[in-house]
């Protein structure tokens, strides 16, 4: 267990370090495209706890990403706060809105919940577009300050890449830990059967609310980081329902029951567009065409996976039927197999 943990994380950290060099020098794709994947990882890893583990399908994850981003951007530009303050503020506001939204919405079950979160996603997106004096309307907010640590300004694509992916790794670590804790077990119990979960003394509603707030807080943090550590500007289109669907696709593709599955899904879905773009430039298509093809493709991928492999690529359920593990556990406890 411990050995596999060290191996896995050595692999993760190693690949995060070398990935930009492979991309830039071998594949000749810019580091900026990897930046986006880092945010995708944060979003999908936080969403998998809510959707995969607790079984509460939210289609409004992008809204909280947006709330984090806009709050941080507004605080930084209008109040002139440093990003080191505006990022926590954005995260907190996301958490608060998560509490206010989650409390009524989580009383709903299955697709009523999905529908409600979908509507919230659309409403927040429309708000970003409409509240011109605050959010800059369709144009959004630009000239966002970079993060400064003392004299060090995180400005170059590579520096931004490392900042974002370090945060992503930390979030993977936290979510993985949570998923293996008794709290994670309770989430899966709720997913299996809410009434039976009540019967083992689980406060189902409170547990759902906690994981909802946790999940959207991470999304808001990712958003706040996105505002200061990506392209220097944000616009409403980046936080539309399309993003929520994209993140759901990552979760489904990678594996509904595993944090590492969500990471896999995010990496695949995050890097796929780059490959398509490369193919597109071969076929001499213009950029808007490519974007539309991408969005259509996500839908197709989602449907294919839901039909043929609803548990995703990395399904934890296979891991758990490990025979040697069983023997090991029984021998440790000194219980002979009957």
């Amino acid at each position: 267990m411990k050995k596999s943990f060290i191996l896995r994380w050595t692999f993760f950290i190693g690949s995060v370090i070398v990935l930009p060099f492979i991309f830039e020098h071998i594949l000749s794709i810019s580091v900026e495209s990897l930046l986006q994947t880092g945010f995708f990882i944060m979003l999908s890893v936080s969403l998998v706890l809510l959707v995969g583990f607790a079984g509460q399908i939210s289609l409004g994850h992008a809204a909280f990403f947006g709330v984090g981003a806009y709050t941080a951007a507004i605080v930084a530009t209008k109040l002139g706060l440093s990003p080191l303050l505006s990022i926590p503020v954005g995260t907190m506001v996301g958490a608060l809105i998560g509490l206010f939204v989650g409390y009524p919405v989580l009383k709903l079950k299955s697709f009523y919940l999905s529908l409600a979160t979908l509507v919230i996603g659309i409403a927040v997106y429309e708000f970003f577009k409409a509240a011109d004096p605050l959010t800059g309307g369709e144009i959004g907010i630009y000239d966002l300050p970079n993060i400064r640590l003392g004299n060090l300004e995180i400005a170059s694509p590579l520096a931004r890449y490392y900042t974002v992916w370090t945060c992503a790794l930390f979030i993977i670590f936290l979510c993985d830990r949570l998923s293996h804790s008794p709290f994670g077990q309770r989430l899966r119990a709720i997913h299996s059967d809410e009434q039976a979960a009540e019967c083992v003394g689980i406060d189902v509603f409170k547990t759902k609310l906690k994981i909802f707030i946790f999940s959207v807080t991470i999304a808001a943090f990712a958003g706040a980081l996105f505002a200061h550590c990506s392209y220097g500007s944000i616009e409403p289109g980046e936080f539309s329902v399309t993003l929520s669907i994209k993140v759901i696709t990552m979760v489904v593709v990678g594996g509904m029951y595993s944090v590492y599955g969500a990471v896999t899904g995010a990496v695949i879905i995050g890097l796929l567009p780059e490959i398509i773009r490369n193919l597109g430039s071969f076929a001499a298509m213009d950029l808007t065409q490519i974007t539309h093809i991408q969005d259509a493709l996500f839908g197709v991928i989602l449907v294919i996976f839901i039909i043929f492999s609803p548990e995703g690529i990395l399904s934890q359920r296979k891991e758990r039927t490990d025979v040697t593990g069983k023997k090991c556990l029984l021998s440790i406890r000194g219980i002979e197999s009957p």
Partner: protein
Amino acid sequence: MLQVKSVSCQFGGLKVLNRVTLEVNQGELVGLMGPNGAGKTTLFNIISGFLTPVEGEIYLKGERITYLPPHLITRKGLVRTFQNVRIFKHLSVIENVEVAIPQSHEIGLLRGLFPTPKTKTIRQLVKEKALEYVHLVGLSQVALRNADSLTFGQQRLLGIARAIALAPEILLLDEPSAGLNRKETEALSEIIKKIHSKGVTIFIIEHDISMLMDLAQRIIVLDRGKKITEGSPEKIKEEKTVIEAYFGERRKCLV
């Protein structure tokens, strides 16, 4: 231990329970029987907090629990099982039991994220306890399998392991032998006796009369939402009203 006072329940125009009053004393093993639709499971649902009665009260150890949510009733020491098992299919066998162990609930979201040395001790303790219960019902060989890969009989045993992991003072079993074969039923009887011998009060719905005769000290009979009689198994066996409830009156049979 458990008092049900004049409880009625209504679904639309249908009166499912009609002023049912009964009592289960500390350390007793009481059977609840009655033909289909008599309201047995509804009564369990009311006691365990899934339904609220239109009238009447439920008391547990002298404390009113009528309008408490199910998880609080469970924490007060009243635990139920379900007729259709309802194990957690997204968890392994041992995890099914682990989530039920009260100490594991001490580890919330925050402690899950940032465990302390104490958290680790608790988790170790929980694992050991869970294995003990899994062993008690004879499932240690499949402890790490997915719960949904078990046979129906094994799932039923797991349901019972999960229930006793909650350290109940009173256990409500809803038709534990339904769908089991003879051999499995016998094994189940033994387990129920074992649990009872440890001082757990048991209230059990059962259709298998021979099993109930063997287990129960007292039997309560419901029919069409009313308690028609109660008494020792021998008495119930002879009771005319019970035979009528199950098979109808003699006259009707002849027609």
